[in-house]
């Protein structure tokens, strides 16, 4: 595993799918630089992409006047990603369980589940307005989730 590159990278992007691509690429690079294997890189990249899509699509509703704020950091212990939108807020507990039999054939509603499944820690914070997600991948894999 390579030496961590200390310091937090932060940027602010407009609410477009191109921005989602930028966030995804930045996450992929941070994960690759940290020496994660292909599976772990895929998990990180996918979770961050899902969070960015939620921010752009559900949070900011593609509103050109609203931005997403993104932070990426390799602390040496963890990869930490924050993605914040400027939307009306989001209560994760209200999302139906996509694994429930009655929801299995729904075409939507798997994003938050995937984020939680693929990362080691996921935290939600209400910003008034907006929601901030913090996604954490432990560099020393413990397999435990919080």
């Amino acid at each position, binding site marked *: 595993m390579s030496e961590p590159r200390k310091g937090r990278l932060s940027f602010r992007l407009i609410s477009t*799918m191109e921005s*989602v691509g930028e966030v995804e690429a930045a996450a992929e690079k941070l994960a690759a630089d940290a020496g994660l294997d292909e599976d772990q890189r*895929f998990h990180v990249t*996918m979770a961050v*992409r*899902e969070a960015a*899509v939620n921010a752009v*699509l559900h949070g900011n509703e593609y509103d050109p006047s609203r931005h997403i704020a993104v932070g990426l950091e390799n602390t040496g212990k963890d990869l930490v990603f924050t993605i914040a939108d400027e939307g009306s807020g989001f209560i994760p507990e209200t999302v139906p369980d*996509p*694994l429930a039999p009655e929801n*299995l*054939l*729904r*075409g*939507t*509603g*798997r*994003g938050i*589940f*995937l984020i939680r*499944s693929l990362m080691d820690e996921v935290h939600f914070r209400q910003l008034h307005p907006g929601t901030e997600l913090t996604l954490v991948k432990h560099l020393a894999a413990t397999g435990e989730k919080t």
Partner: protein
Amino acid sequence: MALTIASREVDGVTVLDLSGRITLGEGSVQLRDAIRDLISKGQKKILLNLGDVNYIDSSGLGELVSAYTTAKNQGAALKLLKLTKKVHDLLQLTKLYTVFDISDDEASAIASFK
């Protein structure tokens, strides 16, 4: 890499060879349109070859489910062929592996429609 879709007929089954990503804005709409087109033309046997799909997101998974239910509601059958490890793992994680009829062998998959 965006999604490319090639269509071919094998023993009355329409095989869609998909290659690239099935994600929001990069393939999910193409897949939806391709399935709807086949259904509207009365095609009842559809096999999605996912062997070259290297990335799928929650939107892409949702599109696969919608394709399955659209086909079923129209009296058609939609099955999956050759999952990559990433797609396989995600279908297991989301329990969608239990929904789809999945095969690794094209000849067996084609035969299963009869």
